[in-house]
């Protein structure tokens, strides 16, 4: 009897927890969806994710298989609704597999950048003694123009997509570190941090369990916006021949390959160009929308 009642209580507790956690996320999502532009962006991102996940299923052809008899077919050609490139490869299939690469590189570089940036930001915001040193290092990274820094790193490490991820992530670190540091500086003055100190909590516990959860909002916004930059930079680096190497289907590389045929087959540059534009636009508007949706001042009962 006692056992069943505690079990029942545990279930109720679990439901309550579920409800609370859901509430925050659902509330943010609801506010985000009210923003029409952000909704549009979300749909594009969703489509990209689906295409990337099920690329082999969406693509009718092998993206790197050449078929010279069907080279440079225009849009709407039979069997190739987006045409083919100069080697006769299906543009739609390449686009779908390119979605996979740009998403992976975006997530990878933003993820790595976040790890570095959050760590540096937390440390420099919390430990006053290390603040000066870390921030000067961050200033140093800021002094390089982003794409130049990326090129420098690729020049050192060699051209490959993995190195592009590393290069772009390093370039994301300084901005992220500054954003996190700013949040930490304001949060660490809160009385509940003082309360944890008076309880005898260690610095690591305070940083990870109390400060970090309270600066997730700016981090989420930063990560979303950064996805757009990362995808654009990947395309730019591949366009310059520093990222994906032929015959990999990558949007920037596709534009680079297509530019020689701009007058005979303009779709080879325009189609991947539109893909890049849409995705970058989508991440930017979703980031903007998230910033508004996560703004505590717009939340009346928090």
């Amino acid at each position, binding site marked *: 009897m006692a056992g069943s009642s505690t079990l029942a209580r545990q279930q109720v507790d679990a439901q309550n927890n579920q409800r609370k956690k859901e509430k925050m996320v659902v509330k943010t999502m609801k506010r985000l969806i009210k923003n029409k532009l952000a909704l549009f962006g979300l749909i594009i991102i969703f489509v990209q994710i689906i295409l990337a996940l099920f690329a082999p299923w969406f693509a009718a052809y092998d993206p790197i298989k050449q078929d010279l008899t069907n080279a440079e077919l225009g849009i709407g050609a039979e069997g190739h609704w987006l045409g083919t490139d100069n080697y006769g490869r299906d543009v739609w299939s390449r686009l779908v597999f390119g979605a996979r690469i740009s998403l992976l590189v975006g997530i990878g570089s933003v993820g790595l950048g976040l790890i570095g940036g959050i760590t540096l930001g937390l440390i420099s915001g919390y430990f006053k003694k290390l603040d000066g040193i870390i921030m000067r290092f961050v200033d140093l990274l800021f002094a390089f123009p982003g794409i130049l820094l990326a090129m420098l790193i690729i020049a050192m490490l060699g051209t490959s997509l993995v190195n592009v991820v590393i290069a772009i992530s390093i370039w994301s670190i300084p901005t992220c570190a500054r954003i996190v540091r700013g949040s930490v500086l304001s949060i660490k003055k809160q009385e*509940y941090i003082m309360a944890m100190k008076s309880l*005898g909590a260690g610095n690591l516990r305070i940083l990870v369990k109390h400060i970090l959860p309270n600066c997730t909002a700016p981090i989420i916004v930063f990560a979303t916006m950064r996805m757009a930059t990362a995808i654009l930079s990947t395309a730019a680096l591949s366009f310059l021949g520093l990222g994906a190497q032929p015959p990999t289907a990558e949007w920037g590389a596709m534009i680079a390959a297509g530019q020689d045929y701009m007058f005979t087959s303009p779709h080879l540059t325009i189609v991947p160009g539109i893909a890049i534009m849409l995705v970058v636009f989508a991440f930017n508007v979703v980031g903007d929308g998230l910033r508004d949706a996560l703004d505590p001042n717009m939340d009346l009962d*928090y």
Partner: protein
Amino acid sequence: MSLHTKPILEVDQVKKYFPIKSGFLKRTVANVQAVENVSVDVMEGETLGIVGESGCGKSTFGRTILGLESLTDGSIKFRGEEIGGLSDRQLKKYKKEMQMIFQDPYASLNPRRRIGDALEEAFIIHTNLRKTERKQRVKELLVEVGLKEEHAERYPHEFSGGQRQRIGIARAVSLNPSLIVCDEAVSALDVSVQAQIIQLLKELQQSHQLTYLFISHDLGVVKHISDRVLVMYLGATAELAPAGQLFSNPLHPYTQALLSAIPRPVVGRKKERIRLKGELPNASNYPSGCPFHTRCPLAHERCRQEKPVWREVEKGHFVACHEV
């Protein structure tokens, strides 16, 4: 007062300065003398009220005792053991014994943590209890401070100010401390809730044999709850006496001015209000001699030059003034 004879905390000549740094090399150009030579013994089981106007260093004093601010100079002994200037790690075992209740019940709880998790944290840090035992202790605590067990699953924003302060109190007593610093613990609450919280504090003092350092600017509350009262002015101690004695026979001119500012609801009994001239001096430009001489109605040449000695004028009644 025979009960309170053993000192739990001996504070001797404590100073806390905040350096003002400026320039590229961050050289110290001046010091804000937040706490200036405070010496006081806190007895086991008593409630020591600390009063003074805003910015007189009473909160800083409380935090310095708990090691939340580093000590500039002086000595703090807890049960005879020196704790001033210890590192955080060395202080950890004393943190179990000394806790704090904060002023703002809205700011002192992490908005993203459930009450149960917030209270459980103290046990995670200081004990080896298993998870179920910790949860059990949290529930007992909540009931002890007049909340319900199921409140553990809620977030801070679902509570009223008074309830939040109860949570703050639960957190402070969770480790069975012997000394609690109440830093303006009831100032942010409205009057009816204040009374409940004070009642709760008194009950807990009985059941846990607590010693309180009750920091407040509200003289009425301090009079009600304190055994002894310490008056601070500009970081220094002005007067210390048993509560009744201080309120009936204040000796220091600052205490007199402070007490005359209490509104009196009695019709027809007008007492002359002592009005202090001028502003509180800047603590970074500390006055010479007696810190109060710039505003004291009785000040004369000696006060400007010489620091008054902290001396016992009657049994248990200390004052720092040349005129007394």
